[in-house]
């Protein structure tokens, strides 16, 4: 792996972590519940991106499954939370 790709991987990881910190700020300060759900959803996506890039960093196929699972759990959790806010229960 060339130095260029190493540098790009660290740059991308740094961007993701910085984005996670900003998103965490939105998650903590709200102001409403739907803002927090959306911030959580974006945190899931950024976490999935971190795992994807780590898979590139370590040249391993296993990370794709992890990224897929994180994306799936992010979808399930944020849609369940949104549904709960909408109707007061998740499964009717």
């Amino acid at each position, binding site marked *: *792996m060339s130095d260029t790709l190493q540098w790009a991987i660290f740059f991308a990881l740094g961007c993701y972590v910085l984005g996670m910190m900003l998103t965490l700020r939105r998650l903590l300060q709200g102001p409403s519940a739907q803002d927090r759900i959306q911030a959580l959803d974006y945190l899931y996506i*950024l976490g999935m991106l971190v795992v994807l890039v780590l898979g590139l960093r370590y040249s391993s196929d296993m990370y794709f499954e992890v*990224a897929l699972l994180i994306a799936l759990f992010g979808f399930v959790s*944020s849609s369940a939370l949104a549904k709960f806010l909408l*109707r007061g229960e998740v499964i009717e």
Partner: protein
Amino acid sequence: MTAPELVPYWVEWLAALLLVASGVMALTGAVGLVRLKNFFQRMHPPALGATLATWCACGASLAYFSALRGGPVVQPWLVVILLCITVPITTILLARTALFRQRAAGDGAPPALSQAPDGRRVDETGRAVGDAGADLP
């Protein structure tokens, strides 16, 4: 590095370029999520992370692993396709939630336009709103 150079130089450059683009897009989405003023404006920046940032990262993985394995690799497409299916659903649910809650709080959200099959106006939860049924025969 001690590992032998298996991947062509231009593939590594392509992957590096896509990764940098992906990082910038994801960061832009996060900055927008913090800086925009109300919820309906803030719905838009995360879409940047879910689409362009993910596509760029998956494109980088696709290029690098295809060159490394010497054949096409399909796993990155699964991530892209899964996000294409799930992200709009989450977005629609969140938008309906925000509309419903802001309307319930009297926060100046636009009135409900959805109709039940019998013509009554209903809100996001399916309950009838106001006296919309009054003008029915």
